[in-house]
Structure formats: structure tokens, C-alpha cells
């Protein structure tokens, strides 16, 4: 099972500069574990210490934000496309 994962500029230091990589997993959570096994440290940039998705990143499965799909429990299938993007946000406080 191969899932194409698009990596944003800020995280390409973990993937040796690669813009996209292949990974495996039946759920988003499993996929992130698989990514971390190959690109150590990546998981810590996506998931907080208490195990939830980091608010600084958006993850999409086939163009749907996973926050609307089941977050880390989102089911994945062969051929799915995952995109990771940094959230663009801020404020005056």
C-alpha cells in the first residue's frame, strides 16, 4: 500500500529535500508513525505531546482537511494523496 505524501518546504529538512515521499498506513496516525520511522522527528512536528494534531499544520487527504474527516483516525487506502501544509495564521496578540 503506497500513499503519496506532499511535504511542505519547512519540513523538507527531514526528507532530504524531497517534496513528496511515499508512506504506508491504514489510518493517518499509522501513516505518521511510518513517516517518522523513515524520517525521524517528523512526527513531533505534526502531533503535539498530548497526541493531537498540531494547530500549526493542516493535513489533507484527497483535498479534504482531516479535521473534517476524523483527524488522526482518518482511514486511508492505497492511492490516496496526503498533503501537509503549514497553517498561515497569526494575530496582534
Amino acid at each position, binding site marked *: 500500500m503506497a500513499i503519496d505524501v506532499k511535504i511542505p*518546504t519547512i519540513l523538507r529538512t527531514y526528507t532530504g529535500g524531497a517534496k513528496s515521499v511515499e508512506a504506508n498506513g491504514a489510518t493517518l496516525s499509522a501513516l505518521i508513525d511510518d513517516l517518522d520511522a523513515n524520517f525521524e522527528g517528523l512526527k513531533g512536528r505534526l502531533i503535539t505531546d498530548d497526541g493531537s494534531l498540531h494547530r*500549526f499544520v493542516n493535513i489533507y487527504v484527497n483535498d479534504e482537511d482531516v479535521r473534517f474527516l476524523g483527524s488522526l483516525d482518518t482511514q486511508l487506502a492505497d492511492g490516496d494523496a496526503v498533503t501537509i501544509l*503549514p*497553517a498561515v495564521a*497569526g*494575530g496582534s496578540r
Partner: protein
Amino acid sequence: MLRLSREFHDAIVAHARQDHPDEACGVIAGPYGSDEPTRFIPMLNAARSPTFYEFDSADLLALYKEMDANDEEPVVIYHSHTATEAYPSRTDISYASEPNAHYVLVSTREEQSTEFRSFRIVDGLVTEEPVEVV
């Protein structure tokens, strides 16, 4: 240093004035690796707030797909502060995650004049840079 055209400078200020007292935000994309802002893309502030801004998640994906297809990157990421100075807040710094981008902040707190400043924000470190309008 950030070099940008008078047209883009004025477009950012106009967007900030138009959305005041809410924060305005957007991007100027440019060819990957060129450091040259060439395509002005005002974005909706999904938070519609005077103290916070965020790109809508679907808009963000569409923007990055478009830039990817054009071999572009965000050269400028701008937003406004509407009651405070044009300097990155703690929230701005924690979210900043484009190491190649110029983070432009404008302040619309004064009615007659608009502060316009540019920063690099890398690994939580803020460095102000000169802005040259050409």
C-alpha cells in the same frame, strides 16, 4: 531586504485599510527561488477578527496547489495589525513557517499613515529588514 513594486506596496496598504478594523492578510507569490514578488493574492481572513488572522483551510490548499503548478512560492506573506504596531506578535512568530518568505506587517492604527515593515522569521527568530519600494 525586501524589494517590491509601488503597485504591490499600495495594494497591501489598500487591502489593510479596506478590512480595518479586522486584520487583512494575503500573499505575493513569485517564481521559486527568485525572491521576486510577482503575483498579488489577497486572501480572506477566515477568523474575521481585529486580533487574529488565518487563511481558510480550503483556500490555503488551493493557493499552494496553484503555486506548485506555477513553480512559485510565497515570497511575501502579509497581514495587518489594526490597533498595535507593525511588529510580529508571539502568535505571528509561533505560526511563521515559511523560511524563505518576507513577513510583511502593516499597521492601520493611525488613520493618516500606515506603518509598513518586513521581517524574516526563522526558527522563532525575528529579523527586521529594509523595504525598498521600486
